[in-house]
Each structure stands twice: as structure tokens, then as C-alpha cells.
């Protein structure tokens, strides 16, 4: 394994006639042609003949018993075609559906509502305005109940029991999960010179893709085939769940995920609205469109994080890290709907030892129900590695403060060393590759770290608050090895199919689904790199279960590590077949041939050979092929990853804080990422840019808080603040390249790296700026009010309303 600082020395891929790299390299995106013209095809753009429109009545209460629902006035509305309640669904055995975490979730409430915004009734009408009108005509008799709002009190004696639908349930406990060696950890802590402890919240956040969630469902009354257009990051998984939930035969379900206006994990779960659109179509015999509004999106669909953590670091006085211990209360909301591999109820949180060489580690996570929307695993979190990376990187800075040591120096002394890879952590992860010290040094140099510290000292002397924050993260992506990782029993391996047409053009069919990541370009480049076919001659098909092989979809940065590998494998199979066909055509032995990009040729006689395009035609021709070799030029593969890939990076954030108002300005952000070789560097950089903005948003602006009655305080973009171009600096990127030893292309996923790594850098920078005030920690989001209060020594609980 080698690490290169700059890939410039690598030979460039040759260019096609259209000027595209035949393989890896910067290439403008194929999909842009339609988006730039306003010709994308998003869920709400779909219009079908006779299509009806639906809307959902939602609970105004966080916790209430439903005594009665009167839908008669709504049903009498002249444009209303159907009104569906929980009672109607009970008759169809559809009132509850399974979640992705072995729980059930109400499709429409029958007994109680358990969070504000929960689905209570569904109206299908001739147009979207009439459907909304009819919601106003439904009368619901609610009996309000005490809500459970504070996750830390969910297990208190006498707390209201939220899930009394579960037989025998007498508390709000979901699970306890432990990882690491508690006894060894205790020993290390007992022997340590220094132990620091800190409570911290990773507040509830929301991915808030600009396109909300929605579905158009059409149950054809003649063929009994359901076509469901869904904002889905995982169309195949959704189809299987539809089959299981509704009892529909899977071959009679076609899930189409059209253009997706951003996902970030928000479009992984199955939402009640999707199921209700199907029911609405079955009931009305018409296509039914349901698209949520922004408040519905923010208040009810897959939120992220909500981890209440206590971290403890043990170290020697001279800065040798020894052990890390974490206790977590995980707020999962009213239904346990987290989307993650089955054996990982806290996701991959137990990767919390991060990038450091420790002697022991242990974590304990307790999941609880509260009267809030379900979810938890979303928002580019890599199955909760966001929370893990934030925890360890905050704790490192707190330890540095305790030791009065520069945080860069403390990291430098404790990072895993290149020769330690592959490295097995104290919680069982096998990091495949890495050169951490080099990435840190590249970042420090790019930032001009020493000069920044000098500037900071000068500014402090003038009473100015400048902060410098570091974060070093290790990601784990590409879930995952099927013997360890499944969702609803479906192993996390993905299929890929490749067919080269007689004229040498190709089509590659994927199980994953882009939400903006540029798959139509990147996967063409992957195939191109293996076969030498220009990327403009390769069509990428995805997002339609009738057109693509089975697979688990796009989330957790798994597309490149899993499907990207599948595409490489399938292309190599085609290449191998092309060798046999070439040998038959040249009447030589396949072993006499060598591959030169785009062409098999005779070793030592390169004038004798066949291009892949010539082979494609030959494979469909009258050429006699060896025994056992079928004609045509195609292949399929299912890729079962042997391990995750482990991208990493070093981030440095520079902020200025207004001492009068507490307002934070992000002045600079340096991000050095190592995701192995970059298939399309332009797209990779774009992915990193987006994640860095997420980090600024989460650290400074975004939180879904609740008041004591369980009212959601982040239900619109006026309340849930997202970063604009004014809050974001010009991102300064650097890279190192450490290929994964087990991925066929050496690639590691990068889609979530920056979201995982950046929040801690921003928070560390702000806390560093507040050092003159003796501030050790304050929870995200570091709004002006929060920063100002931290300066006064009394930071807020940001998950609760200010009271």
C-alpha cells in the first residue's frame, strides 16, 4: 500500500473523440443536460392521465388518545374521491407496517397519536388544493396525554408509556447495546494520570433535501400491476418491503425512483404516505400522487442524530491517549424506524475510537422512545459515524485543553501509524488502509497552522476572538459484507449487469440510485476504465426495479465501494470474454493475448488484435466460438464486499466570533480527504463541498428542538435554519491517495466524509475562540445566543426550548 500526496504524477487517461477521459479523470456530467434545461423528472413533475392528488391530516398533539374521527364532511366535498382513516386500514390489515429496525410504525393512527405531525387520515381528491381543503373538514376528538420530550427522562419511573400498543410494554426502553471491553477499560482508566469527562448532545437534525418526499402510485386495475414512483434511495429494498407489507406479489410491483432532488438519507425509509398512495390508488382505481410539504418533511420524515453522550478520555500527563468510554442515550422517537444493518442497533457508532491508537475502549448505547418523529439514521451519517467522529474529536480537544497541549500536537502523538494497517480497533473494526500522519501534515501546511496560531495570539491580545479547530476522522463505508450486514434480512450485496451492443456501445444497469452524485457519469467512467469504451458510449440505467438488478441502494456512501466494485467486476468479466472471442477470431490461444486499453492484441505483435468494438460485433456474428462460450458480449455480477472501506481526512476550520453578539463567522475551511483514487475528481470535490456546508450548518444553525408539550420547533425553513452562500466560505481542499487494498479499483466512498468530519472542526474552532472565557464545551448549534450564553458560563440545552 502506498500513499501519494498528489495524483498529478499519474498518467492521464486518454481522451475520447468527444474529449472525455476513457477512464478516470475530470469529466462534465451527462445528467446536467436535462437539469440545466429544466427537464429533470422529479416526483412532482409526473403527470398521469386521470391522476388524483392526496394529502395527509396530521396530529397537532405529541401524545393524545384518539376518541373519534368524523370524516363525513370531508367525504361530502364534491372533489373528494376517498377518505381513509386508521380504522379503514385496520380492515385491510394495513394500519401498521414494519420498520427497518424490527419495530412497527402506524401508517395511520388508530389508538393514539405519538408525535406531533403523525399521520391520522388520508384524503384523495381531484386536485391538490381540494385535498387540503378536505383535511380541514375532518374532525378528530383528541384526548391529550402527557408527552415524553426529554430523552434523558424517558426511562424515569412513572414516565408516560408511549408504546402501549406493544403487549406488556411498561416503559420507553428500546435496546441496550454495548461494544468493547468494559473491564479492560476500567483498568486503563484506573491507572491513568488524567481523566476528562464531558456530556454532549448531537442534537436532532434533519437532512432537508430541497425536494420533499412523495410518491405517485398506480395500481392498474386490469393487469393488477402496481407502478410506484417514489423518492427512493433504495428502489429494490422498497419494492421488497411493499411486497411484504401489502402482500402484493413482488413481480407485480415496479418501483421507479425518478430524478431525486437530494436525499442525504431522508429518502431511505418507507413512509406512511408512500403506502397510503398505494392504498389510495387501489381504492380509487386511479393513479394517486402524494407529495409532502416542507413542514411535513421537517416534522415527520427521517430526522438524524439525537444522541445524548457522555464521553470519558483517559490519558497520561504527557499526552498519550489510553482509553475512551462513552455512554449514550439515543432518542429514536415514537417508533424505532432507524435504517441500518440489523446487527447494529446503534449503527456504526462503535467506531468512536476514531483515528487513534488506544489501549481500551467501551461504549454503551441505550435507545429510548420519545414523543417525537421516528428516524435517527440519516443525513449523510454513515450509520452514525457522524456522532462517533464528533464525540471523539470533541473529546480530543477537551483532553488537549486539560493537558494544556496544542490540539494538533496531541493528535500527532496519538494517530495510528501507517505500519499499523490493517488495524483492528478495540471495538472490532478492521481499518483497511491509511496514512493518517501525512493527511494531518498536509492539512496543517495547507492551512498555515503555525502562522494561524501566531495570528490568533496577536488578536487575543487585542481582545478579538479567533478560533482554530481541527478534526481528524476515520469513516467506514460500503456496507457491507453480507454475513455481517443485512437490512430486513436482505444481505447488503449489490448486482450489476453490463451488455455491449453489436456496435460496441454499452449499457450498464445498477441497483443503486443517484440523488445528485452523478452516477450516470461516474459509472460510465468506471466501465470505460476497464473496457476502453468511451464514457459517452455507455448508458447508465438505474432507479427502475424492472430494468435493473437487485441491490440495497444508495446511502451510507456505499455506491462506489459496493456498486462501483460490481461495475468494475462485471466489466472485467466482459473483458475476459472478449479475450476468448478475440482468440477465436485470431485463431490463437487466449493466453497469447495482452490487454491494451480498449483492445486485445497478440503479445509481441500489437498490430494483430481486436478492439472491444470489433469484438462486440464478432460476438454477435457467425464466428465460431469455443465449446462452452456463448455468443454476445455481456455479463452480470453480484458484489459482496469483503470489508468496509475506510476513507479518512484532516480538517481545519478558522472562525471569528463577535464578542458582543456571539455571532460566528467561518473564515476558512481546509479539508484534506483521502478516499483512494478519484474516479471523477470534479464530482468528488463537489461531494466534499456539500458535506462541509452541512458541517457549518449543523455546528452553527440547524437543530430540531421541542418545547415541553412536544411541539416541534423546527417545522419550517423560517425556524430550521440552513446555511446559505453567505455562511459558507470558499472551501480549500487537499488530498492524499491511499487505495483500498480490497476494492477492485482501490476506491473508497466519499459522499459523507465531509458531513462526518466537519462539524467537530467548526465546534472545536468556536470553543477555541472562547478559550479566554474558560469555555470547555457548548452544544451545537452554536447560534449567537448559545455562544453568548457560553461566554457567560451557562450554555443551553439546545434540544429543548428556551424556557
Amino acid at each position, binding site marked *: 500500500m502506498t500513499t501519494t500526496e498528489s*495524483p498529478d504524477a*499519474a*498518467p*492521464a*487517461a486518454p*481522451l475520447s473523440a*468527444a*474529449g*472525455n*477521459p476513457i*477512464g*478516470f*479523470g*475530470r469529466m*462534465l*456530467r451527462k445528467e*446536467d*443536460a*436535462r437539469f*440545466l*434545461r*429544466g*427537464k*429533470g423528472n*422529479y416526483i*412532482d413533475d409526473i403527470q398521469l392521465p386521470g391522476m388524483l392528488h392526496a394529502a395527509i391530516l396530521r396530529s397537532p398533539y405529541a401524545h393524545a388518545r384518539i376518541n373519534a374521527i368524523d370524516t363525513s364532511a370531508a367525504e361530502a366535498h364534491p372533489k373528494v374521491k376517498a377518505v381513509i382513516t386508521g380504522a379503514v386500514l385496520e380492515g385491510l390489515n394495513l394500519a401498521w407496517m414494519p420498520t427497518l429496525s424490527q419495530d412497527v410504525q402506524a401508517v395511520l393512527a388508530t389508538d393514539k397519536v405519538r408525535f406531533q405531525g403523525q399521520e391520522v387520515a388520508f384524503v384523495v381528491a381531484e386536485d391538490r388544493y381540494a385535498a387540503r381543503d378536505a383535511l380541514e373538514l375532518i374532525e378528530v376528538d383528541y384526548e391529550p396525554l402527557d408527552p415524553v420530550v426529554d430523552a434523558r427522562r424517558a426511562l424515569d419511573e412513572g414516565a408516560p408509556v408511549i408504546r402501549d400498543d406493544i403487549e406488556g410494554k411498561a416503559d420507553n426502553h428500546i435496546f441496550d447495546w454495548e461494544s468493547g471491553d468494559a473491564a479492560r477499560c476500567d483498568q486503563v482508566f484506573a491507572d491513568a494520570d488524567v481523566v476528562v469527562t464531558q456530556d454532549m448532545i448531537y442534537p436532532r437534525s434533519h*437532512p*432537508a*433535501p*430541497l*425536494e420533499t418526499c412523495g410518491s405517485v402510485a398506480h395500481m392498474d386495475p386490469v393487469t393488477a400491476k402496481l407502478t410506484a414512483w417514489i423518492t427512493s434511495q433504495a428502489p429494490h429494498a422498497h419494492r421488497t418491503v411493499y411486497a411484504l407489507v401489502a402482500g402484493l406479489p413482488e413481480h407485480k410491483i415496479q418501483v421507479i425512483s425518478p*430524478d*431525486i432532488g*437530494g*436525499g442525504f438519507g431522508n429518502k431511505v425509509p418507507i413512509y406512511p404516505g408512500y403506502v397510503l398512495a398505494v392504498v389510495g390508488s387501489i381504492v380509487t382505481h386511479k393513479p394517486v400522487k402524494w407529495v409532502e410539504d*416542507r413542514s411535513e418533511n421537517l416534522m415527520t420524515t427521517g430526522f438524524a442524530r439525537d444522541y445524548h453522550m457522555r464521553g470519558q478520555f483517559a490519558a497520561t500527563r504527557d499526552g498519550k491517549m489510553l482509553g475512551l468510554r462513552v455512554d449514550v442515550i439515543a432518542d429514536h422517537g415514537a417508533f424505532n424506524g432507524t435504517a441500518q444493518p440489523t446487527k447494529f442497533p446503534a449503527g456504526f457508532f462503535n467506531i468512536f475510537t476514531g483515528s487513534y491508537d488506544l489501549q481500551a475502549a467501551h461504549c454503551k448505547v441505550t435507545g429510548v422512545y420519545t414523543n417525537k418523529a421516528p428516524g435517527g439514521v440519516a443525513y449523510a451519517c454513515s450509520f452514525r459515524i457522524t456522532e462517533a467522529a464528533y464525540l471523539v474529536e470533541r473529546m480530543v480537544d477537551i483532553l488537549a485543553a486539560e493537558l494544556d497541549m496544542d490540539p494538533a500536537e496531541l493528535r500527532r502523538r496519538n494517530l495510528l501509524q501507517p505500519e499499523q494497517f490493517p488495524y483492528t480497533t478495540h471495538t472490532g473494526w478492521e481499518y483497511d488502509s491509511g496514512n493518517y500522519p501525512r493527511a494531518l501534515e498536509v492539512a496543517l501546511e495547507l492551512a498555515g497552522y503555525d502562522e494561524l496560531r501566531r495570528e490568533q495570539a496577536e488578536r487575543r491580545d487585542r481582545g478579538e476572538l479567533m478560533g482554530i479547530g481541527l478534526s481528524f476522522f476515520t469513516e467506514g463505508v460500503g456496507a457491507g459484507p453480507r454475513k455481517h450486514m443485512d437490512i430486513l434480512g436482505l444481505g447488503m450485496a449489490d448486482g450489476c449487469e453490463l451488455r455491449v451492443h453489436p456496435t460496441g456501445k454499452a449499457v450498464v444497469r445498477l441497483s443503486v440510485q443517484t440523488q*445528485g*452524485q452523478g452516477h450516470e457519469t461516474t459509472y460510465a467512467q468506471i466501465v470505460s*476504465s476497464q473496457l476502453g469504451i468511451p464514457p*459517452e458510449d455507455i448508458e447508465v440505467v438505474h432507479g427502475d426495479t424492472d430494468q435493473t438488478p437487485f441491490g440495497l441502494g444508495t446511502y451510507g456512501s456505499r455506491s462506489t465501494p459496493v456498486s462501483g466494485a460490481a461495475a468494475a467486476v462485471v466489466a472485467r468479466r466482459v473483458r475476459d470474454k472478449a479475450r476468448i472471442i478475440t482468440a477465436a477470431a485470431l485463431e490463437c490461444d487466449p493466453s497469447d493475448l495482452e490487454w491494451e*486499453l480498449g483492445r486485445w492484441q497478440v503479445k509481441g505483435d500489437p498490430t494483430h488484435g481486436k478492439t472491444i468494438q470489433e469484438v462486440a460485433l464478432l460476438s454477435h456474428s457467425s464466428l465460431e466460438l469455443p465449446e462452452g462460450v456463448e455468443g454476445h458480449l455481456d455479463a452480470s455480477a453480484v458484489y459482496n464486499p469483503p470489508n468496509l472501506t475506510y476513507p479518512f481526512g484532516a480538517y481545519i476550520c478558522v472562525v471569528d466570533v463577535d464578542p458582543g453578539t456571539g455571532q460566528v463567522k467561518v473564515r476558512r475551511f481546509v479539508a484534506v480527504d483521502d478516499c483512494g*483514487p478519484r*474516479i471523477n475528481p470534479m*464530482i468528488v470535490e*463537489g461531494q466534499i*463541498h*456539500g*458535506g*462541509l*456546508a452541512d458541517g457549518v450548518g449543523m455546528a452553527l444553525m440547524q437543530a430540531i428542538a421541542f418545547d415541553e408539550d412536544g411541539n416541534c420547533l423546527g417545522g*419550517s*425553513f423560517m425556524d430550521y435554519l440552513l446555511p*446559505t*452562500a*453567505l455562511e*459558507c466560505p*470558499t*472551501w480549500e481542499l487537499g488530498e492524499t491517495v491511499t*487505495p483500498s487494498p480490497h476494492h477492485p*479499483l482501490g476506491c473508497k466512498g466519499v459522499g459523507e466524509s465531509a458531513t462526518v468530519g466537519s462539524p467537530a472542526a467548526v465546534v472545536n474552532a468556536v470553543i477555541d475562540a472562547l478559550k479566554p472565557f474558560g469555555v470547555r464545551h457548548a452544544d451545537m448549534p452554536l447560534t449567537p445566543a448559545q455562544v453568548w450564553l457560553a461566554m457567560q458560563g451557562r450554555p443551553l440545552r439546545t434540544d429543548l426550548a428556551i424556557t
Partner: protein
Amino acid sequence: MQVTMTVNGEEVTRDIEPRLLLVHFVRDHLGLTGTHWGCDTSNCGTCVVWMDGEPVKSCTVLAAMAAGRTIRTVEDLERDGELDPVQQGFMQCHGLQCGFCTPGMMMTARWLLDHDPDPTDDEIREAISGQFCRCTGYENVVQAIRWAAEHPDGLGEAAEPAAAADSAAAGDAVSEEVSA
């Protein structure tokens, strides 16, 4: 009620409900789905169109208020088969990912450059600060608009080699082992 307005150079007349939002009029009644809807509260800017030459958020304009006025949407940026320099800039600089905010961003960008052909990066950021992008972190959106400012005639002949490489940058290929 009946409204008549000029949309992308064509006069259109429709019977509508008085409460109909302009964004729904454009999308559902005219089938111009390039204009998107994202928030209801004038925060996200995916619905930006021009009304009488000024960018407006069409989710908070009634179609009735547009009666007798001139509306321009993203579908009108491309002229005679040639992309507007702003559209070309977004492609050249990877100024879009999922594409949902893109039409609104481009309408604002076109307006900005019509009024200030050489804005600073800070002025570009200010101009698009009423609009969200969840994918790009804004950097490449700013670069895209800057590109359009620097190429007022676009790429000209080479306008849109569908997904062609930027030849200047195409050398940024990756390490050897990957194509082996």
C-alpha cells in the same frame, strides 16, 4: 377567474381559482416543470422566476397577481438551441448536483449578470443568499456564475459537447493502479 399573461414570450390564458399560486400555475397548468417548489415560505428559492424582468419567488405570488405581466422561466434560458452562458457555466463548473435548486439559481444569476456583468464573488454570494442549495456548498455555484460573467458569449461553437471534458482540466487523472 380568467388570467392572461405572457410566459416565455407566449401569451397564455387560463381559467383558474383566485388562490392558485404562480408556481402551481406554471407547473401544473402550463406544464413548465423546470420551476420547482421547495418550502412554501419564500426561503428556499427553488421557485424563482422572473416577473416583469425581476426575480420573484413564485410560491408566494398568486397567479392572479401575474395577470397582464410577463413571466420568464428556466425553460426560456436556452435560445435557438444554444444554452445561456449561465447554463454553460453551471455545467462547466459542476454548479449542480441533484439539480433541484438549479433553475432558480440560474434565473437569479442571469438577472444578476444582466444588471452587473462583472460582480465580485461576494456580490454573487449576496445575490443567491435567498436560495438554498443542499448539495454543492455553494462554492461551484459561485464559480459557475463567475464563469458566465467571464464568458458572456458562452463557449460559442463548442457549446455543448454533451458531457465533454474540459480539455484544460482533463489531465487531472488518477493514479496508475486504478486503470490497470
